[in-house]
């Protein structure tokens, strides 16, 4: 009998989390069941988000390679699968087969966990993006009041992984990569957060949903154009792609913080890079282009979001393919002397906007 109640409580919990409340009885008296149901739901969601993130990464890597080849008058991957679509899968298998090399003098534990520290925020970031209208279908994994704050907190973690990886691998180039990563991180993080704060002021909420809802009339890119520029440059720096790929800087520091990494550990860095590109495009689309909001209600919000994010992905890719690298002092100059004042100016403007015409947003 107890077992029956126990199982039923789990079922009840599952249905409750899916917003299906047809069971007339209240099973709240069985908290264990609810708890287990919550665990199951969380596990499923985590796996789903992980899968979605990986699929996005795979698609993005393929698009990157093909598009880069396109711009360089080449054909690009074309051997494996139709139009070379399975190339990345083959690459992953190749990397998995490789010997796992840890340098003799490296700090082994730090060296081994560094790729995961870089990669985890990508997955964590994806749970915070509202992929559609919450009131219709809950496509947002974690919907709580301080989404944007948490998002910022999550994204700060990944440079830590780069620093740990660089410092632990006992290599001078990796050390320089780590130091540059640290310098770059504090260079763009402050203006980025200030520009996020101005969005929060304008929307009146930390919740990503509320921010999207606030953009139903006018995307924030128009009143917050300065903030957008700051945030966009910060996002490029965050992904460490050219022109701000200082921690890696292939032609100067061999491969920067990831010099000593090989095999799948390097593969994780590589995928984290693309994962961040996808995440950054979704974040920018959500914060500045109105997320899933779109003019025609026939088209679901998810499609709008993906279209908006794809535009940014192409821009990021173009920047990667077409631009050279800045020097580290030039980047820091830009961050502290131009981006920071710009973002503060933007904060002042958006405070004024919120004060006078705040209700309209």
């Amino acid at each position, binding site marked *: 009998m107890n077992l029956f109640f126990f199982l039923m409580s789990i079922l009840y919990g599952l249905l409750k989390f899916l917003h299906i409340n047809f069971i007339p009885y209240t099973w709240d008296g069985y908290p264990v069941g609810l708890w287990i149901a919550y665990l199951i739901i969380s596990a499923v969601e985590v796996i789903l988000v992980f899968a979605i993130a990986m699929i996005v990464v795979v698609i993005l890597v393929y698009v990157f390679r093909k*598009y880069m080849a396109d*711009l*360089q*008058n*080449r054909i690009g991957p*074309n051997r494996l699968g139709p139009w070379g679509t399975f190339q990345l899968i083959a690459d992953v298998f190749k990397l998995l087969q490789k010997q796992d090399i840890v340098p003799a003098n490296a700090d082994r534990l730090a060296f081994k966990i560094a790729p995961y520290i870089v990669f985890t925020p990508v997955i964590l970031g994806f749970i915070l993006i509202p992929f559609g209208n919450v009131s219709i279908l809950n496509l947002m994994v974690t919907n709580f009041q301080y989404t944007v704050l948490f998002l910022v907190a999550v994204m700060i973690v990944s440079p830590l992984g780069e620093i740990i990886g660089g410092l632990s691998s006992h290599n001078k180039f990796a050390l320089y990569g780590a130091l540059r990563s640290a310098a770059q991180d504090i260079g763009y993080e402050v203006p980025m957060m200030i520009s996020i704060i101005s969005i929060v002021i304008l929307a009146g909420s930390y919740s990503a949903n509320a921010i999207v809802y606030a953009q139903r009339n006018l995307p924030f890119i128009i009143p917050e154009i300065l903030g957008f520029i700051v945030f966009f440059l910060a996002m490029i720096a965050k992904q460490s792609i050219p022109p701000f790929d200082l921690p890696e800087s292939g032609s100067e520091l061999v491969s920067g913080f990831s010099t000593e990494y090989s095999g799948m550990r390097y593969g994780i860095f590589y995928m984290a890079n693309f994962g961040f590109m996808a995440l950054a495009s979704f974040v920018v689309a959500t914060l500045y282009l109105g997320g899933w909001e779109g003019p025609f209600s026939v088209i679901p919000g998810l499609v709008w979001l993906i279209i908006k994010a794809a535009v940014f992905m192409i821009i990021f890719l*173009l920047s990667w*393919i*077409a*631009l050279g690298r800045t020097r580290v002092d030039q980047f820091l100059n830009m961050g502290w002397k131009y981006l920071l004042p710009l973002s503060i100016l933007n904060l002042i403007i958006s405070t004024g906007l919120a004060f006078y015409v705040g209700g309209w947003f």
Partner: protein
Amino acid sequence: MTQSDKAPGPIAGIGGIIKGVWTIFTQGFKPKVTKQVPEEKLEYPERATGRVFLNMDACIGCTLCEQICPNGTIKMVTFAFSKKEEFDKKYPNKRQIFPSVDVSTCTHCNLCEEICPTGAITLEAEIDEIHFRRENTRYSPPMLAKKESELWGNDKK
């Protein structure tokens, strides 16, 4: 001299960034220039200096090619014909020495073709001289007269 004489300032420079990105962006619509080599064959010009070919009917065994060869790829070897063959063909090579070539060390420098007084040695557009066994790389004079496909068929051993 030209307008690119001075380095641009920030405004022109940011315009330059956008122009550069746009230039690269437009390249995406241009045709590809690479070729898929196993499927699409590359064209070789007539003069392409590929493998050494030897016309044994013309070779007089003067050893000039051995003398000029910069890295000892060409070595003269005696190659005796059976009596009847010799009778039939009237080889001009009385000493019966012919060049043999190690295709793995040949640098395709074309000097042997240039120096050959009778035009017996030529370098022709034949580049598939890849071998899996080192002993196969030294070509004897009759082998030098044949094409790769005649020598090895379609697969290399």
